[in-house]
C-alpha cells in the first residue's frame, strides 16, 4: 500500500494511493458537501456539489471521483466555490418540485440539509414546475419523481449491493428520469426483491415507504454501510 502526500486547504495530508480527494479530506476532518456520493457504492460525480480547486488545473474537479496524487494542492472552500455550491443547490430546487412543507422527508432530507449548509434562503433561479408523476404500484414502496434529483444512488445501490438492477436512468436533459425495469410500473417489476435499499439510499423524499405521511420518512443509512463492510471485511455484526 503506497501513500501519497498532498495539501488540502494548506494542511498536509497523507492518503492511500487510489483514494479520492473526498476520502482524503474526510479523513483529515474537512467537510465537503455531497449529494450523489453514498458510502459503499461507486461514485459518479453527478451532483457537482463537491467541486474543488486544484492548483495547476484550470477547471474545477469533483472531489468524489478525483484520485489523490503526490504533491496535489487542493482548496475545498473559497467564496467562489461556496457560491457555485449554492447555485447548484438552487438549481436542484428549481429543476424539480420540492415542496418541503408537505414532503415525507421534511426534517430528514439531505437536499434540505445541504441547502442549509450552503446558506440558501431562496432560489435565484425561476422554478420550472415540471409535470412529473408518482408511482405507488409497488406493494411496499413508492417513487415521487417530483422530488428526484437524479443522483442515481438508487440505481447504484440496487445494482452494486442488492444485485437486482431494477433501477436505471432513461431520457435525456429535462426529460431524464429514473425508471424501474423497462420503464414499467414498479409493482410489475419481477426483479425487485423489495429489499428497500433504494429507500435507505435516496437522499430526498423521492423513494419512500408507502403510508408515510409528511415528515415521517426515516431511513437506515447504517444498514448499507454495514452490508458493504460485512462483505468486504467479513464483519458480520453491527
Amino acid at each position, binding site marked *: 500500500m503506497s501513500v501519497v502526500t498532498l495539501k488540502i486547504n494548506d494542511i498536509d495530508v497523507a492518503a492511500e494511493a487510489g483514494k479520492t480527494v473526498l476520502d482524503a479530506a474526510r479523513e483529515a476532518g474537512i467537510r465537503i458537501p455531497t449529494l450523489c456520493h453514498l458510502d459503499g457504492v461507486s461514485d459518479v460525480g453527478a451532483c457537482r456539489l463537491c467541486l474543488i480547486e486544484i492548483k495547476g488545473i484550470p477547471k474545477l474537479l469533483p472531489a468524489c471521483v478525483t484520485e489523490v496524487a503526490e504533491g496535489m494542492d487542493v482548496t475545498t472552500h473559497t467564496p467562489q466555490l461556496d457560491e457555485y455550491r449554492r447555485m447548484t443547490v438552487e438549481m436542484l430546487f428549481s429543476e424539480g418540485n420540492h415542496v418541503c*412543507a*408537505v414532503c*415525507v422527508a421534511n426534517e430528514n432530507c439531505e437536499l434540505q440539509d445541504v441547502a442549509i449548509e450552503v446558506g440558501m434562503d431562496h432560489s435565484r433561479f425561476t422554478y420550472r414546475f415540471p409535470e412529473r*408523476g*408518482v408511482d*405507488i*404500484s409497488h406493494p411496499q414502496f*413508492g417513487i*415521487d419523481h417530483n422530488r428526484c434529483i437524479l443522483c442515481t444512488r438508487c440505481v447504484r445501490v440496487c445494482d452494486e449491493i442488492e444485485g437486482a438492477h431494477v433501477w436505471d436512468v432513461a431520457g435525456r436533459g429535462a426529460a431524464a428520469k429514473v425508471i424501474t425495469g423497462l420503464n414499467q410500473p414498479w*409493482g410489475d417489476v419481477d426483479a425487485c426483491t423489495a429489499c428497500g435499499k433504494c429507500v435507505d439510499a435516496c437522499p430526498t423524499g423521492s423513494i419512500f415507504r*408507502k*403510508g*408515510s*405521511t*409528511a*415528515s*415521517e420518512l426515516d431511513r437506515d443509512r447504517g444498514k448499507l454501510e454495514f452490508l458493504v463492510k460485512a462483505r468486504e471485511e467479513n464483519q458480520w455484526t453491527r
Partner: protein
Amino acid sequence: MSKTVVIDPVTRIEGHAKISIFLNDAGDVDDARFHVVEFRGFEKFCEGRPMFEMAGITARICGICPVSHLLAAAKTGDKILAVQVPPAGEKLRRLMNLAQIIQSHTLSFFHLSSPDFLLGWDSDPAKRNVFGLMEANPDLARAGIRLRQFGQTVIELLGAKKIHAAWAVPGGVRSPLSEEGLQWIRDRLPESRQTIETALGLFKQLLDNTLKDEIDIFGQFDSLFMSLVAPDGTWEHYGGHIRFVDSQGNIVADGLREEDYQDFLDEAVEPWSYLKFPYYKPMGYPDGMYRVGPLARLNVCDRMGTPDADRELQEFRQRAGGRCATSSFMYHYARLLEVLACIERIEQYVDDPDLLSSRCRAKAEINNLEGVGVSEAPRGTLFHHYNVDENGLIEKVNLIIATGQNNLAMNKTVTQIAQHYIHNNDVAEGFLNRVEAGIRNFDPCLSCSTHAVGQMPLHIELLAPDKTVINTIYRD
C-alpha cells in the same frame, strides 16, 4: 345617482375579502355583497398525490385551523383504510381539536373582534386593533394572548409544531402525549379557566349595556343551523352525526351521515365571489340557507355535557329568548362559551391514562376506494371527500369548508347592517366598520373557504418622533 361603496380589504379577518354596498338614488342601501377574492384550487392539484399525504397538504390550506384539515383528512383516511382508530388515538385527536378550538376562538375574540367592543366601533381605525387593545387594556390583552398560547402549546405538545403539525394520520395519531406535556397542561388549566370566565363575564356585561342593540342589527334572521351532535344529542366536535334544526329549534333532519352529504348539501356559484354558496338541498337555493360554527353547534345540541358549560348554555338560551339564538352577533358569545366547554373537557381528560398510550395508530392498506371524513372546525362542519385508485393515489377531491357554509348568512348579515346604518349617502368610517364586523361575527377563514392562500402582509413602521395618523381610505 346610485353608487357603489367598496370596502377593500375587509380587515381583522383571516383572508382577503371585499364588501360592495349598493346605494340607491336616495342614498340608502339596496343591497350588499361579500366578495372573497382569493382562490387556490386544492381540489385539482391534490390529484395524483398519495392519499397519505393529504393530511399534510390540506393542513396547508390554512394557518389558523390546520388541525381541522388534519383531522378531516385523517378521518377520511380511516375510511379508505377501513380501520377503527384505537381509543387512545381518538382521545388524542379530540384533545388536539379542543386545543385548536380554544386557540382559534381566542384569536377571534381577543385579537380580532374585541377592539370593536372595548375601544368602540367609531374609535380611531389606526388604533382599533390588537395592539391598541394591548395599550388600552394590557391585562386583558395579555390574558387573551396567554389563553391562545395555551391552545397552541397543547397542539405543539401533541404534534411537535404549533402550526401545520402533521400528526394525525389515517388510522390514528403518530405519538401519544408525554408525561411532562400532560403535566404542563394540568398546570396551565386553572389560569386558562380564569381567563375565559373573565371574558365570558365581560362579554355578558357588554351585551347588557353597550352592545345591547347590536343583537338585533348584526344579522338577526331565521335560518337553519347544522352541526355534528353526539348520538345522545350532546355537543360534539369530532364524531357523532349531522343534525339540522330550524330557528325555533325544531329538528329538520337528524342522524345524517357524512357519506351522504351530497344528498343534503349542494353548492351554488355566483360570478362575484370565489366563495361558493352551499345550501340545504331539500329547500333549494337560496332558501336552504343554513349557518354552521359555534352558534349552530349551541343551537343544534341538546346539552353541552359538562356542568359549567351546561349552566352557561341555559343562560345563553335564556338571553336568546328561546332554544335558538338567531342573531349572528351571538357567535361571539357562543365562541366564548365553547372555549369554556373545551377547557372543561380537557380538565376531565387529563387524568385519562390513554393519553399516554402508544397504542394510538392502526395500520392497513387501501381497502376502500372512496371516503368522506368530517370534523367540526372552530368555524363549523368541515367535509373531506376523496376517491383513490387501487394504490391509493388521489383521483378526485371535494372539500366543503366550514366558512363557505356561512356564505349566504354572511351576505344577509352585511346587508342588514348596511341597511340599518347607512342613509343619505352617509358612509362614515364607523358605519363601514360595523358592516365589516358583520363578517367578523362569523370569524371566517377565507384561506380555507376558497382553499386560497391569503396574501397577508404585516407591516411594521418604526416609531418616528412626529408620527402622523394615517387616514383610512375607502375606495368608492
